């Protein structure tokens, strides 16, 4: 018999990176919210790499911050090394990444949840989930029954989790936690289309067992860039270093000799692993001609001696792991503290979700994070934020928030998942966006702060700061477009050193900055009127001027897209009745039920000819509507 444990607006199952953002967003928007975790010490845990950000993922964190989410702030507070990747490849792909003190991060997040108004954090395993007349019911293992208007499922790798290490396998959540087994049956009873995915993590090793003299050192950047627009860069810790080493023929030999003991190659694991984050044995088999593979050795925190072996995940038996790790320079005597493992878990086919992250056919039930088929902390947090916002808006009876592909990587991520689906754990990459030059990490605030403020998540302070940055930027761009720089011997000397044409007459400052060989800061000493600007504003100014032509081009591409996005497909459209659609297209359209022509055009299996048919169909409908 269960006991009644309370009425809520929003219940969140799981307190990982998705659950945290979901619960904070809902509670901050005024909804009474409860969030459940199987283990109170695993809130906001980082069971894999001790870092946040990286290519495209760094963009996601910035966007979460611009909307008023927590991840960026938490990462800045617990950073131990800060790096901007791909500085040489252009502003579209500058990507921020920070090494994180993982225990400190978890602590920060737990404390933030505890302090949040309207929010209850509970250690409990949800074992049943069903809809009653009064809303959704969540029942815990200890028979507490919670009732809520909306529920967000953010179970990560816990759902029917199973760990594999060589021939050994057992039911478990990540990092030695309990799995969530009973909930899966409840979800199957709701007829959710569940599937098995898998992911893996490398070993953690003892710092003092590593010979650092054989390793390349990788320090943080000289100048620090925070994730959050609200963080003062001065406050960020950037003192830790990472190390680089490489595998060799001996590593390869050990792995190939033991490949038959891998549960993956032995066919024991049925779950599909992430294509872009393969285990070492996967890399060695798939890229057989590659001589060596790089690995990063990263600290897990400030007050621990555990080191993480990035790029070396494996599901081979423990003794094989030890053997192959010890073939790597610097790791000859390495002591493995936690073994590498693969974990298999249940998740939903995201084609069963609307772009609001609500489950189709199950109103008020939402999915977020790895449960939706993604991989990565940042992807999870991004979805959690949107699911939390939309659950809260649903409770309030307001229109949901749907981010477009052209607005953000968050929008791209969710559209990809819900429109194209995924056949392996989905990882965000810059190449997934067709609008990379518009969706930069430096302008995430310009793209999303208005929305964050309107929703009510972005604080007045942060919003005011954003408006101030905008004012400064616009003013400086205007100044540079309208003032001229006189030629001088010293300036021409610089121009020649940089390999660009010296000046004979005055040149517009913006035109000088547009020269690829010159930077905004290069010209500082020749520009007497230049105001003192915060680094993030100076960055925006430079990019906006230097890339103006290309940015405008991409903006034109967006305009074209928006026309198709705005061509809405009516609810309850019966694709069987539309003459001329191919059978495959009818099936796919019925499954996805796209909201617009734009979304329909991205469904695999729907051809341009099918889109033409839909356009003609809509035209006819419109004409019918007019004649009525």
């Amino acid at each position, binding site marked *: 018999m269960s006991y009644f444990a309370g009425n809520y607006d929003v219940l969140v199952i799981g307190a990982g990176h998705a659950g945290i953002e979901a619960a904070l967003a809902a509670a901050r928007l005024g909804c009474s919210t409860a969030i459940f975790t199987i283990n109170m010490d695993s809130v906001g845990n980082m069971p894999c790499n001790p870092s946040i950000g990286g290519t495209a993922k760094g963009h996601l964190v910035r966007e979460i911050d611009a909307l008023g989410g927590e991840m960026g702030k938490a990462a800045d507070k617990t950073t131990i090394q800060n790096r901007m990747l791909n500085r040489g490849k252009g502003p579209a792909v500058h990507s921020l990444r920070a090494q994180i003190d993982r225990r400190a991060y978890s602590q920060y997040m737990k404390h933030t949840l505890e302090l949040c108004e309207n929010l209850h954090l509970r250690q409990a395993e949800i074992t049943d989930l069903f809809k009653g007349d009064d809303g959704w019911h969540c029942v815990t293992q200890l028979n507490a029954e919670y009732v809520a208007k909306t529920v967000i499922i953010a179970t990560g790798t816990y759902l029917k989790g199973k760990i594999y290490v060589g021939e050994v396998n057992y039911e478990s959540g990540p990092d030695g936690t309990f799995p969530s087994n009973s909930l899966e049956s409840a979800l199957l009873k709701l007829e959710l289309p569940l599937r098995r995915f898998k992911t893996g993590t490398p070993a953690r090793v003892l710092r003092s067992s590593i010979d650092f003299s054989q390793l390349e050192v990788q320090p943080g950047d000289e100048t620090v860039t925070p994730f959050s627009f609200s963080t003062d860069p001065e406050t960020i810790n950037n003192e830790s270093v990472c190390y680089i080493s490489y595998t060799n023929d001996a590593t390869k030999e050990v792995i190939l000799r033991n490949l038959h003991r891998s549960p993956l190659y032995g066919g024991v694991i049925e779950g599909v692993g992430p294509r872009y984050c393969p285990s070492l044995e996967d890399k060695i088999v798939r890229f057989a001609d590659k001589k060596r593979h*790089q690995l990063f050795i990263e600290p897990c925190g400030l007050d621990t001696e555990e080191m993480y072996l990035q790029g070396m995940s494996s599901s081979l038996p423990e003794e094989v792991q030890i053997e192959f790790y010890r073939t790597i320079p610097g790791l000859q005597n390495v002591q493995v503290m936690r073994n590498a493992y693969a974990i298999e878990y249940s998740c939903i086919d995201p084609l069963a979700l609307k772009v609001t992250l609500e489950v189709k056919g199950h109103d008020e039930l939402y999915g977020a994070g790895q449960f939706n088929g993604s991989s990565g902390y940042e992807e999870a947090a991004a979805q959690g934020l949107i699911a939390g916002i939309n659950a809260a808006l649903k409770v309030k009876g307001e229109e949901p928030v749907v981010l477009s592909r052209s607005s953000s990587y968050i929008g791209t991520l969710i559209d990809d998942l819900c429109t194209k689906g995924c056949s392996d754990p989905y990882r965000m990459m810059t190449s997934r966006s067709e609008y990379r030059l518009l969706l930069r990490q430096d302008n995430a605030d310009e793209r999303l702060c208005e929305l964050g403020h309107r929703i009510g998540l972005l604080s007045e302070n942060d919003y005011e700061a954003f408006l101030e940055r905008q004012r400064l930027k616009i003013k400086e761009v205007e100044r540079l477009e309208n003032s001229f720089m006189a030629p001088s011997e010293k300036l021409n000397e610089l121009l020649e050193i940089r390999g660009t044409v010296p000046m004979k007459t005055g040149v517009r400052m913006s035109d000088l900055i547009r020269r690829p060989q010159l930077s905004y800061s290069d010209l500082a000493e020749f520009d007497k009127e230049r105001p003192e600007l915060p680094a993030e504003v100076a960055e925006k100014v430079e990019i906006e001027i230097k890339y103006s032509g290309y940015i405008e081009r991409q903006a034109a591409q967006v305009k074209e897209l928006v026309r198709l996005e705005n061509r809405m497909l009516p609810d309850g459209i019966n694709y069987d009745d539309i003459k001329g659609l191919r059978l495959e297209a009818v099936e796919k359209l019925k499954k996805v039920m796209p909201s617009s022509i734009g979304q329909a055009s991205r469904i695999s299996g729907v051809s341009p000819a099918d889109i033409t048919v839909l356009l003609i169909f809509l035209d006819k409908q419109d004409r019918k509507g007019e004649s009525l």
Partner: protein
Amino acid sequence: MGKTIAAVATPQGEGGIGIVRISGDGAVDVADKVFRSQSGKVLRDAAGYTALFGGVWRDDEKIDEAVALVFRAPKSYTGEDVVELSVHGGSFVVNCVLRAVIDAGACLAGRGEFTERAFRNGKLDLTEAEAVMEIIAADGEQALRASMAAKGGAVSKKCAAVKESLTFAAATVAAFSDFPDEEPEFSGIDRLEEMLVNAEDELDRLCANYDTGRMIRNGINTVIVGPPNAGKSTLMNLLVGCERSIVTPVAGTTRDVIEETVRFDGLTLRLSDTAGLRETEDTVEQIGVKLTRERIESADLIIAVVDGADVDRDETAELLDGIKGRPAVVVLNKSDLNVADKTVAESRGLPCVLMSAKDGTGLLEFKNLIKTVTNTANLTGAEGVYLNERQRDCAVRALKNVREALDALRCGMTVDAVGVCLDDAVSALMELTGERVTVEVANKVFEHFCVGK
């Protein structure tokens, strides 16, 4: 359920055979109402690809003997059920049959509706659909061959190859961006410039072929110019084979631009005979002269006709100077009266022929010169990579984008900027092949179709 459509599928006019085509879910039922087979078998029971002999009836009156050919969806031109009723040619009979079919429940097909249905049912891609349109409209043999090749997908294939290589380049840029710079060097990006240069060459060639393709398809837009009474109209009449222009010995009698179509050796010339290029105070003639100058600017071919006796006159020098550098053939006419010196034309780089428009001397050489000048001498339309206007528009855009990508790359911009240009190029080519749909494309293509196909 979609409506069933019908139209006459063969050209209007007298012919050995005329076909009425019916397409749609109700095609077989409609046909059964008008067609009675000799064997007594009904079309409803006929399998696809079978023919029945019988007659077409309207009420109790037999219109004509007919063969009914049944196609079952999706194995038909449109991808729907189709019945073709072949009757004896002649517009009266064929139109009677069509009327009977309409009375039996079919709707008259709209412009290009059969092909539109074929496109929508996935039987044709966009460039193939366009090719069908061109086959119907094809004037001249070479045009027909080029269109046939296009229907076979030559344009698609050629463009798809360029598109593939550009897509690969775009993917390389994207992948390069995805790899953090701390990882071992990503290979492939160093070949980007080479990939772009190759694509530039291909696109350049495609666009350059456009003019030739257009001339084959639409005919060579030709202007005949020359001083009054040099024999322009006589030459035109020689080519046309009948008197079309008003020919009188009084200078200045041709005032309007007169258009005529001439076919030889598979080429089509669209001739405009013009008012002479004489300065005149006669207002009507002035308008004619202005029109002539405009035509010279836009013509594919200019035929300058000069009286062989006038080669030394200032007007002749003036005329030939005016067309220098344009694709032109100079005819020194009236060779039956005097043999002129070709220097006046050849010194200006203009090919020249001595000719008598009156008796036809020099005609063969004249035709050969035309082929040389218009670059159509050795054409086999079957190469089939001639773009139409819409396709050219896309290809030109793609070319422009590729060049901008190259500029960005060469002047040292980062690859993300190069990528923006590349994306535009790929998307222009996808528009060309119909893989990317814009509302405009679908409309643009189908409004040009004629009824019946």
